[in-house]
């Protein structure tokens, strides 16, 4: 069972609907979509209003495209739930939140190795943030 990490800590999955692949996103019934790290965010532009959940995959924690994808989708007006899923480290939780993600989805192995308190230590996303000082 995968674990969802939010600011309050580990929570169980609350999304019960289907999650479409990127190829299926044009389907009018799709309300959630999986987006790989190498996706072109412009492909989602026409569907953002309909989508309630976008899950961006991190194949490796060292591949930082997902952070810029998330920021782009927010700038394009996406207001639904934005989730980072896969190999994301506790040390990256603040970055993920500041890039526009609401939550992170990790597998049980990673959750065992990097337990809840390591994520909660990074949950104060507004502290020590240069970006929010430089923008209004």
């Amino acid at each position, binding site marked *: 069972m995968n674990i969802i990490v939010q600011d309050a800590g580990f929570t169980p999955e609350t999304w019960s609907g289907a999650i479409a692949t990127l190829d299926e996103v044009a389907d009018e019934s799709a309300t959630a979509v999986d987006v790989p790290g190498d996706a072109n965010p412009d492909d989602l532009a026409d569907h953002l209003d309909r989508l309630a959940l976008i899950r961006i995959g991190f194949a490796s*924690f060292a591949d930082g495209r997902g952070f810029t994808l998330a920021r782009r989708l927010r700038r394009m007006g996406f207001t639904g739930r934005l989730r980072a899923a896969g190999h994301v480290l506790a040390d990256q939780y603040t970055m993920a939140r500041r890039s526009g993600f609401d939550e992170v989805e990790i597998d049980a192995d990673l959750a065992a190795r990097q337990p809840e308190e390591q994520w909660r230590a990074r949950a104060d996303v507004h502290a*020590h943030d240069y970006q929010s000082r430089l923008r209004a």
Partner: protein
Amino acid sequence: MYTYTEFDEAFVRNRVAQFRGQVNRRLDGSLTEDEFKPLRLMNGLYLQLHAYMLRVAIPYGTLNSGQMRQLAYLADKWDKGYGHFTTRQNIQYNWPKLGDVPDMLDALADVGMHAIQTSGNTIRNVTADHFAGAAADEIEDPRPVAELLRQWSTDHPEFQFLPRKFKIAVTGSPTDRAVTKAHDIGLRMVRNAAGEPGFEVIVGGGLGRTPMIGKVINEFLPKADLLPYCEAIVATYNLLGRRDNKYKARIKITVHENGLDTFRELVDARFAEIRGEFSGVDQKILAGIEAQFAPPPLRQAETTSFEVRYAADPVFRSWADTNLSAHKSADHAIVTVSIKKQGQTPGDATSDQMRLLADIAATHAYDELRISHEQNVILPHVHKSDLPAIYDALASVELATANVGLVSDIIACPGMDYCALATARSIPVAQTIATRFDELKLEHEIGPLKIKISGCINACGHHHVGHIGILGLDRAGVENYQITLGGDGTETAVIGERTGPGFAYDEIVPAIERLIGAYLNIRQSDDETFIETYRRLGMEPFKDALYGESARSGRAHAA
């Protein structure tokens, strides 16, 4: 000079505490070695050939005496009594123990310093003209902008895991002393027709295995657009840059493969989205930073003591002619202290030397020091009447070598002596060349000449932009040194051209001697520098000197 705000101070302390935690979590298994690696790199900690290496940022190359003393303290307490200044305005300690590193970082934070983002695939320490704020030819001091970029890039949430490292350099002067055209982003301050300050933005420069001179992506960027524009460039690169091949991952390749025009279109589209997020708060912060960089109140006094010594003492005169540069105030000078006495390791300074430099800065130089990308230490503001006293103090610790800009003022990367990636030695080559021309007493006769040496294709020694570049390679287990000629790292940047086959370790110094001998024979006058002669006559006479005239026809065939 910039002093940390409470925010900066709290940020750096928090970062040290996080790193302390990461070291512990590595030890207890929460983090695998693979996962720990980018986290330690983000905090400046490398694993080298023999031990860890900590790379400390000297933001825009500026230090005060207290900071220099602290660098000496770190060298004594956690290293072997010295530090190594690099070509990117950092200082490296080669022997720290992993468990001690958080304490070293705390000691740095005590004086407003850090090692954040000095390595890893992120935006690195922003470098600037080492004469900033003092040079006679400057439009504006580039350091406030460099500090603004430091704040913006520090812990930027989108840009900690880029395809590859990302380097930014800024110059405020038409004379480019910051090698901006060999950076991922180079910023050159310019004024538009209305006289407003802005930047020429250069993108996609870099040395390494595929050297490229940066291309102008924007001829005039208004100053207030700097952060959103840089953010647009890096965001575009983060999605577009290649992640399948580490050697094609730098932005120079991204720009090259996609074409500058396509890349510019994408950047402009991102910029349009991002611009509105910067409402001007950043410009208020910049104004505050600028106030902190106000030049020191320069003292007025007679300069007679300097002139008297200059006339009477030829050794002092030689040092003054070689190591001083024009200050914007005529009765002041910029002093470049060579930490490259012939035969020493370029860039290495002992803790005693660092403390003496700190004392001199505190007593005679308005408490300011700079580190140049050419691995020397600079006293940017010195009243000329203080020069004799400074010279004598420097001479007492072997820091008065009069070789700045000359044949023995060599840039050399650490090479095989320290670096795990090296394919050849570079430090001993630099030492031997320097000692050889010192013995021949030819250094001043030869005049301005930039020799740069790298110990592998990664080109940390900037050999491509040396007038004479030397690249140490490995040919079937034997060191082999390739020579390039005509490189230039200034506003007229050019990548040097290869002369031909390389030379073995014991042949490389004689080869350099032949090159320079040829130059002395064919120069039009004593005033024509090596690079001018090369530009006038081209490669041929130098090839003859290296390989013999008899090899000419063979060369024609081979070509």
